[in-house]
């Protein structure tokens, strides 16, 4: 059997060959719903540890997938009244302007510190590439900051510089404990230490893209996010 024959045989069992095209009206509605999903996430409290796309969403398989995605895929979520213990600088009262990036929201009250919420990557996804600026530059969120606390399912970081993403007053990384253990191990988060952290799709990147602050890593961040 040559490759063409194999491909023929495979195509003969293509499960999608019987798939009838979707009703155009339904597609139109789906697209409309998609575009009506605000880029700036209005869900202010996003279901505890289920924040990262890899994390379990309570409503994951229920009828409203969009609702879940709003919580799950959000890169930046402005939290209301979350943990004002953190360096609460008066400037933070400014509501970030609605620039079309995923950031703060109408739902957030103007007096709360803004929070970037991130999740941990699923352990199964760990595939490492040599860290390079080109790849790093695709991160939607990148910042340096000092770890304020490490708990079983949450690491809180006080950022001092945002290279990418809408700056917020603090960053919460939330994940179920088993994922968090892996993440803390991968990045070696320790209280009081300074880190460079980047995230894609709301998940902290590992494999050398996030790590303790070092001149080398900083140089990489500067190269990836000039200006």
């Amino acid at each position, binding site marked *: *059997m040559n490759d063409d024959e194999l491909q023929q*045989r495979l195509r003969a069992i293509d*499960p*999608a060959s019987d798939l*009838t095209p979707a009703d155009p009206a339904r597609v139109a509605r*789906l697209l409309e719903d998609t*575009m009506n999903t605000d*880029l700036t996430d209005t869900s202010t409290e996003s279901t505890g540890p289920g924040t990262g796309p890899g994390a379990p969403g309570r409503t*994951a*398989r229920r009828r409203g997938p969009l609702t879940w995605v709003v919580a799950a895929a959000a890169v930046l979520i402005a939290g209301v009244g979350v943990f004002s213990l953190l360096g609460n600088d008066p400037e933070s009262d400014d509501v970030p302007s609605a620039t079309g990036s995923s950031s703060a929201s109408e739902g957030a009250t103007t007096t709360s510190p803004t929070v970037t919420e991130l999740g941990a990557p699923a352990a199964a996804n760990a595939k490492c590439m040599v860290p390079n600026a080109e790849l790093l530059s695709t991160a939607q969120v990148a910042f340096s900051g000092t770890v304020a606390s490490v708990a079983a399912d949450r690491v809180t970081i006080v950022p001092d510089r945002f290279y990418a993403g809408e700056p917020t007053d603090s960053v919460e990384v939330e994940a179920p404990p088993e994922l968090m253990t892996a993440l803390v191990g991968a990045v070696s988060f320790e209280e009081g230490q300074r880190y460079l952290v980047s995230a894609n799709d709301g998940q902290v990147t590992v494999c050398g893209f996030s790590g303790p602050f070092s001149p080398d890593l900083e140089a990489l961040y500067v190269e990836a996010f000039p200006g």
Partner: protein
Amino acid sequence: MANDDSRATERRARFEALAPELVEPLRRFLARRTDAATAEDVLSETLLVCWRRLDDVPADAALPWAYGVARHCLANAQRSARRQGRLAAKVATVDPPAETSPGPGGPDGHDGDDRLHAALVRLTDTEAELIRLWAWEQLTPSEIAGVMDLTPNAVSIRLHRAREKLKEIMRKDATASGHEESTEGRTP
């Protein structure tokens, strides 16, 4: 504010131009990999990611990029499904979708090539995915590379191996069962 409005309008226009092209291929992509209900959920999720990350969609390779997103969303959906102890076996294989209309191939979507079905199941996840992307989505190695986050070179090599493995499994199967109708080495 007017500026924001026009940016939003422009963004919608871009998405409206892009998304309809993606919907049918994505539906087929998902129908090949999961059950109908999950497919529907993951489709909306995938579109939402495309909407949110519209600026990241490569102009010349939007579909492979979207397949990559769908693959990711599907993996997430399957992880949470597994975590909740549901659907475990159902989603992991290339089972035909539960609710497609019966086609000429047969009422249950199974079209008689049991040996090929059996062989596919014996590939690793990555091998099977390479095979599916090649045979069903009919992507080139460099497009597959975009979907799977590999280099085109790695895809070529691994795809080649996966095809050989698949053929080998079927060959052994045929020999083991003493199957007569093997097409191997026969010329009509």
